[in-house]
């Protein structure tokens, strides 16, 4: 299907998110859309998929016909389907029920027929699902596949994928790309939105770059990476040189710690973490790294073994005890676990400080907030509620809440969904804190390059097994990718870290 966007404008209050974008995507191509956070990519895609409506005067033309889409449902009737960054499904339900939900069907769905259709479609695209299984047993990557199938079934001819490679493994990514590459042969159009250059370069037939709400350029292969980066940011950006850690005394020590939850068992982890050191945790989502991190924070109690922080045995102590000893945990779900929606930035900073007396000194709180906003470069005011901030600014706000003194910072996906400039900024702040306070960092990331770039040593998790600490400087992305996928592991028994 041929997609033509003509003079697309969109205002959100005073913000001009799309400024007259003109883009034609011929049938049977994979179109990449690049841009940093806030470049207007998501807005443009939401307009194309009917989630929001563009300002008057803008036109969406499908196969030569101007169309007006006032909801995702009407978009899918025209054949436009969107795959969201977070899968929109119903985890506690069966796969088949989830599948049936989106279909226009009678009051009593014909399960048998639907099962047949489902299996046929799955086979055609090389997916394997048990339709009677529950959605919450699937990985993020599998849920994506399920969503793609649902859109196919609904008759989508234009697929919009918004940052689909976030949070899925390397092999799932390969599979996703292989699937997507089949689409153009059938005359379908794929629009692939990302800020990951590598993905776009590998997949797309053509790339359009957005910056500040405008279309700043279109290119075709062969791609020139530094040119693309320059178009995205308007200047040249690099990650910078690796900085070797200056390591000091032992901060955290795990002695033969075993952890257990309903799904996983991790046995006998031993690890010494020194001040100034950064440890990256790599692995597929749900391989045990989350549980390990929560054990470091005191949120999960070890089944056996000892957890020693700065010489104090904290085994089995509560999270709040760990926190008093200088362990800070920044969860990935910022608005669900990290911050309190409805409260302002000032409120957050006041809450994070030790109370002085009974009454809050408003003036001091205001000043504290202004200082932090400035030093952490948060785009917001002291009275801004946290949910009104963008993702990157929420992340900065979380960093600004780190207590002092610190001994250990635990971060879950600290830069997920952020553009490269924010990533660099956040890591420079983290490294600063590390140096100042003699703190250590443990972080989880599904971005392998980030893991290798910023950690001194790394631990790889694979279905409950933990690797020896690996020197990040001498490891390549390929080696790491294979370990994450469960290849090249030493024989069982020696899994001590």
């Amino acid at each position, binding site marked *: 299907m041929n997609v033509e966007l003509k003079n697309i404008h969109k205002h959100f209050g005073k913000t001009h998110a799309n400024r007259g974008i003109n883009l034609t995507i011929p049938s049977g191509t994979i179109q990449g859309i690049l841009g940093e956070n806030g470049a207007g990519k998501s807005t443009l895609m939401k307009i194309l998929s009917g989630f929001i409506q563009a300002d008057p005067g803008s036109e969406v033309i499908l196969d030569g016909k101007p169309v007006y889409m006032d909801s995702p449902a009407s978009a899918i009737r025209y054949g436009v389907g969107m795959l969201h960054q977070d899968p929109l499904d119903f985890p506690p339900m069966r796969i088949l029920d989830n599948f049936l939900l989106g279909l226009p069907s009678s009051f009593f769905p014909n399960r048998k027929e639907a099962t047949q259709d489902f299996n046929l479609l799955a086979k055609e695209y090389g997916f394997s699902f048990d339709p009677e299984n529950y959605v919450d047993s699937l990985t993020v990557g599998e849920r994506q596949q399920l969503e793609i199938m649902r859109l196919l079934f609904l008759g989508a001819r234009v697929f919009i994928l918004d940052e689909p490679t976030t949070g899925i493994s390397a092999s799932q990514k390969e599979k996703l790309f292989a699937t997507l590459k089949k689409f153009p042969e059938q005359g379908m159009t794929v629009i692939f939105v990302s800020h990951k250059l590598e993905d776009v370069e590998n997949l797309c037939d053509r790339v359009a770059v957005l910056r500040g709400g405008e279309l700043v350029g279109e290119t075709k292969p062969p791609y020139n990476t530094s040119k693309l980066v320059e178009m995205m940011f308007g200047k040249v950006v690099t990650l910078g040189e690796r900085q070797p850690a200056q390591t000091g005394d032992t901060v955290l020590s795990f002695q033969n710690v075993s952890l257990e939850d309903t799904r996983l068992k991790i046995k006998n982890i031993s690890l010494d973490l020194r001040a100034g050191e950064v440890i990256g945790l790599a692995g597929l989502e749900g391989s045990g790294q989350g549980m390990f991190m929560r054990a470091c924070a005191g949120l999960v109690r070890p089944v056996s073994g000892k957890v020693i922080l700065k010489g104090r045995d904290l085994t089995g102590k509560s*999270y709040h005890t760990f926190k008093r000893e200088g362990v800070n945990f920044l969860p990935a779900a910022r608005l*669900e676990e990290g911050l309190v*929606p409805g409260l302002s930035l000032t409120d957050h900073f006041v809450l994070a400080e030790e109370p002085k007396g009974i009454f809050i000194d408003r003036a001091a709180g205001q000043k504290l907030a202004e200082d932090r906003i400035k030093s952490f470069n948060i785009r917001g005011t002291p009275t801004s509620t946290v949910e009104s901030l963008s993702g990157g600014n929420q992340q900065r706000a979380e960093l600004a809440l780190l207590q002092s003194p610190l001994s250990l910072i635990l971060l879950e996906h600290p830069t997920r969904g952020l553009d490269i400039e924010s990533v660099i900024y956040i890591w420079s702040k983290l490294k600063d804190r590390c140096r100042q306070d003699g703190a250590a960092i443990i972080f989880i990331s599904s971005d392998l390059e980030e893991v290798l770039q910023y950690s001194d040593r790394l631990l790889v998790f694979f279905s409950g097994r933990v690797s020896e600490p690996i020197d990040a400087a001498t490891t390549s992305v390929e080696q790491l990718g294979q370990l994450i996928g469960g290849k090249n592991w030493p024989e069982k028994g020696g899994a001590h870290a």
Partner: protein
Amino acid sequence: MLKTRFGGVLFQAVAFVLAMSFVSLILVAVGASPLEAYKNMLTGSVGSMRKLAEVLVSFVPLLLVTAGLLLTFSAGLWNIGVEGQIVLGAIGTTWALRYFVDSTLPPALIIALSILAGMFAGALWAAFAGILKTFGGVNEIFGGLGLNFVSTALTLYLIFGPWKREGVASMSGTEPFPDIFSLPQLPDLRISPWALGIALVAIVVVYFILQGTYFGLRIKAVGKNFRAAYLLGIPTWQYSLYSFLICGALAGAAGALQVTAVYHRLIPSISSGYGYLGLMVAMLINYQAIWAVPVAFFFAALNIGSIQLPIVLKLDSSLSGVLQGVLVLFVLLMEGVRQKFVKKV
């Protein structure tokens, strides 16, 4: 403009007009004149000092309950059990008065001790709901509802059992206490300035707790995001429990004042539905303490103003309840409409 405070007030004004029109329609439908009805309610509530004093008698428990509920709502809790907490306050006070009735302590001290006993009993009842919630995983709405029924049964048991009047037990309640155990009232009026003072102090204290203290900010954080509050280092379940305890104590005070300043005995319907009415007031003011006094006063005025409707206009006095309920519904509805508007703009 719609996002500003003024915009919010505008929408609430519209809600008020809609609610009044809706009730007027009902009145017209039953063949009554809305204007006459409203006029009667107005003169029946603030038409004379006597009437005004009656309104204040109703205003005191309503304000106390609302003040307490502002804390539990801020903590994200639906303290439906507030009704039972009023009842337990009344029972606690009656128990203390009975205990001290023959003692030689000065009456003022006895009254003070009895009110404290009522607050303690109310807090205890709230603690049950809180503990069920925190340690038993029982939703506070269900726990509170259950405890409300228990409290009613307990009142009846006491009135018809151990605390029954000499000779004959009756729905009119326990034996009235001697006058010296009543809070002093204004000459010729039923309102006790002491009771009014206690209620006003309570709302002011709650206002400052929520606006300016670490305690209040933490309660709000717990209410808005329990998990994040825990990760930020706030002892979450303790704060939930504190809010229950304070709300229970204030509801208990309302019950205590019903005994010491209004009925001078324990009666079966001692709580008079002030708990549920307080929930409505708290919702109507969107949990903002600053509006509690005028709105609670307005609701109390509706209650009292409707009393003479049956006599004058042959209308049922439950009209005030209809008006209160409709008002809350329209305000919530308009808030929903406003949210949609704000999103679109």
